[in-house]
């Protein structure tokens, strides 16, 4: 098909599909009139049952925690996939270190950028840690925390300290951390099974006060593992791609 044919077929078909979709919208309760019963049912019981004041986290890590298991493993699988796809390039570096070097013109990182990035790296790591460990109280959780945590490490790279970055995150170590994060989640769920409770059931003490950092039992534990897994996966992905870029930089120097 030529580009023009494709565009026309798509415009006709897309219009038809859009018409079909809009035709169906009449059956939806209007915006702002969510009919329930799922949400209200959870809102009614969540705080009392879990001692987590952030109901979204309670849903994410307990009521629909099983979804989150799948979600974590999607990320885990994707990170493994990135390693698989890019791994051969890594092997290639040993064979031909100078490939595609000449055409690059990467200016050296300015000292201002270095300063800013280094200054922000520390807070980013602290904030990430805080987010990952406060899922039960605030709008936060392992996922957001993990990404922020990882971006702290990425800032270290921005500061031009790639060698530091590489020392911090050798691929093997990251594989281990990733496995521990993803496996820790599954193992937390399985622990319940060995205590003859249902998979993912809360087997820790809920804590006396809803909303306290040490409250909500396994929700906080799972959130922590998720943070670990997410941070490792993200650093791994960025690291694999960075190594690609590094291929170029090394060639230049």
């Amino acid at each position: 098909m030529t580009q023009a044919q494709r565009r026309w077929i798509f415009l006709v078909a897309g219009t038809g599909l859009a018409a079909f979709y809009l035709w169906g919208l009449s059956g939806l309760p209007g915006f702002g009139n969510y009919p329930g019963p799922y949400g209200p049912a959870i809102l009614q019981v969540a705080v009392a049952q879990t001692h987590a004041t952030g109901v979204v986290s309670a849903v994410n890590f307990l009521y629909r925690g099983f979804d989150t298991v799948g979600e974590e493993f999607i990320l885990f699988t994707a990170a493994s996939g990135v390693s698989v796809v890019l791994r051969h390039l890594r092997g290639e570096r040993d064979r031909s270190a100078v490939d595609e070097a000449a055409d690059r013109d990467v200016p050296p990182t300015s000292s201002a950028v270095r300063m800013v990035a280094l200054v922000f790296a520390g807070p980013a790591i602290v904030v990430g840690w805080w987010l990952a460990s406060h899922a039960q109280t605030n709008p936060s959780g392992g996922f957001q925390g993990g990404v922020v945590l990882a971006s702290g490490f990425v800032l270290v790279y921005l500061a031009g300290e790639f060698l530091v970055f590489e020392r911090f995150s050798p691929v093997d170590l990251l594989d281990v951390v990733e496995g521990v994060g993803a496996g820790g989640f599954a193992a937390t769920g399985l622990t319940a099974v060995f205590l003859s409770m249902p998979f993912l059931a809360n087997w820790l003490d809920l804590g006396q006060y809803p909303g306290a950092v040490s409250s909500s039992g396994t929700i906080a534990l799972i959130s922590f593992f998720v943070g670990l897994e997410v941070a490792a996966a993200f650093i791994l992905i960025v690291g694999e791609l960075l190594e690609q870029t590094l291929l170029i930089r090394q060639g230049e120097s």
Partner: protein
Amino acid sequence: MAVFPFVVVAWILGIGLYGIVTSRHLVHQIVCLTVVQSSTYVLLLGVGYVTGAVAPYYYDVPDHTPAVDPVVQALALTDVVVEAAVTALLLSFAVQAHKRFGTLDPHELASMKG
């Protein structure tokens, strides 16, 4: 206002698909795929919204204040992670494709596969 958010959802979905269909650059195409997916966040949060209700946090509001649906928010969170994972994997494919073929145009890639 009753259906407007859902019309916006349809628009985002449609424009994203249009981008995928007409794209001549793989990275652009992958970004368009994330646009398609972003329509699902808007849809999910849109259907769970309750007019005049608060976010589902009982940290600093009295219990039993009307709150929007927490379930769709959990679903949207999962959805965001899926987006990040799939996009990262696809981008690594793109890097490899460029390495092997020297191009990121889907047409040229198709003609070179053999």
